[in-house]
C-alpha cells in the first residue's frame, strides 16, 4: 500500500523560479551567462597566436566557425552567404548555451524552455529575412513571396493565401514553437523521471521491493539526460540552419 500518492506539480512550479532581483530571474541569468561565456570563448581564442596549430579554446572557436561555414552556410546559401557567418554563429552559440543548462546539475533549466528567448530570436530572424528580401529584390520580394515564380494564374489566389500564411505567419511561429516546445518537453520529461525516482525512494511503504524499483526511473533519467545533450545541440543547429535557409531563400528566390 503506497502511503503517499504521486502527483505531478503544477507546471509553473517547474518553470518559474524565484526572482533574483525584481527584474532579474534565472532565465535572464542563463541568457546573460550564455552571452558572456560565448564572448569569453572568442576573446580567449582571439588572444592566442593564430599561426600555431589551434588547441584548447581556440580549437573550440575555430571548430564552431568551420561548422557554421561548412555545415550550414555552404550547404544552404553557398558562397554568397558567408557574410552571414558571424550572425549565424552567434545565434547558434547563444541558443546552444541557453539549451545546455537544462542538463547541468543545479541549473537544470534550459532558458529556451520559456517563451521569451525563442520568440525574440524568431522575430529577429523574421525581421532579418524579410529585410534581406526587400533589400535584394526590392518590392518584387512581396509578390515573389506570395506567388513563387512559375505559378499558373488560375492557382494564384489559392497559392497566394497558402504562401502568405506559410512564409509570413507560420515560419516565425514554427521557429519559436520548435525550439521552445522541444526544450520544454525535455525539461518536463526530466522532471517527471526525477520526481518518480525521488518519490519511489522516499515512499513510506511496507513493500520492500518498491524502493529498489527507483533504479528503473533513474536509468531512464540518465538516458534522457544523455538524449537532452543531443537535443540541445540539434535544436540549436536546426534553428540556425532554418534561419540560413530563410535568409538564403529571401536573397535568391530561384533557389
Amino acid at each position, binding site marked *: 500500500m503506497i502511503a503517499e500518492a504521486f502527483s505531478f506539480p*503544477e507546471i509553473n512550479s517547474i518553470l518559474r523560479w524565484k526572482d533574483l532581483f525584481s527584474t532579474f530571474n534565472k532565465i535572464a541569468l542563463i541568457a546573460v551567462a550564455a552571452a558572456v561565456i560565448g564572448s569569453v570563448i572568442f576573446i580567449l581564442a582571439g588572444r592566442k597566436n593564430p599561426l600555431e596549430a589551434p588547441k584548447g579554446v581556440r580549437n573550440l572557436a575555430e571548430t564552431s566557425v568551420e561548422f557554421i561555414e561548412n555545415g550550414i552556410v555552404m550547404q544552404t546559401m553557398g558562397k554568397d552567404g558567408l557574410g552571414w557567418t558571424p550572425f549565424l554563429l552567434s545565434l547558434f552559440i547563444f541558443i546552444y548555451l541557453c539549451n545546455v543548462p537544462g542538463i547541468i546539475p543545479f541549473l537544470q533549466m534550459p532558458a529556451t524552455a520559456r517563451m521569451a528567448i525563442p520568440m525574440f530570436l524568431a522575430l529577429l530572424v523574421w525581421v532579418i529575412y524579410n529585410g534581406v528580401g526587400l533589400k535584394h529584390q526590392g518590392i518584387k520580394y512581396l509578390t515573389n513571396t506570395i506567388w513563387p515564380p512559375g505559378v499558373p494564374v488560375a492557382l494564384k489566389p489559392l497559392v497566394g493565401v497558402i504562401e502568405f500564411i506559410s512564409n509570413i505567419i507560420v515560419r516565425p511561429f514554427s521557429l519559436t*514553437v*520548435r525550439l521552445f516546445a*522541444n526544450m520544454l518537453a525535455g525539461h518536463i520529461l526530466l522532471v517527471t523521471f526525477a520526481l518518480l525516482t525521488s518519490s519511489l525512494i522516499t515512499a513510506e511503504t511496507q513493500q520492500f521491493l518498491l524502493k529498489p524499483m527507483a533504479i528503473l526511473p533513474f536509468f531512464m533519467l540518465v538516458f534522457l539526460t544523455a538524449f537532452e545533450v543531443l537535443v540541445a545541440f540539434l535544436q540549436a543547429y*536546426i534553428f540556425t*540552419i*532554418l534561419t540560413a*535557409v530563410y535568409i538564403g531563400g529571401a536573397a535568391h528566390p530561384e533557389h
Partner: protein
Amino acid sequence: MEAFSHLIGAAFDQQQADADKAASAAASAGFAYGLAAIGPGIGIGYLVGKSVEAMARQPEAAGMVRTTMFLGIAFTEALALIGFVVFILIGL
C-alpha cells in the same frame, strides 16, 4: 436562511463544474497530444528511412542528404510540437 443555503449550493455547483472541466480538459489534452503525434511519427520515420536509403546508395552525397533530412525533420516535427503546446495549454 434559504438564500444562504442557495448560495452555498451555487458555490458547490461552481466548484463541481470547475472540477469536471479540469478533468475533461486533462483527458482531451492527452487525446490531443496522442493524435498530434501520429502523423509526424509516421512522417519522420518515412523521411529518415528514405534518407538512409539515399545515403546508402550515394555515400558521396551523404552531407547534402543529411542537411535536407534535418530540415525535413524540423518541418515535420513542428506539427507534433504544436500538439504538445496545445497539450500544455489545455491540460496543465
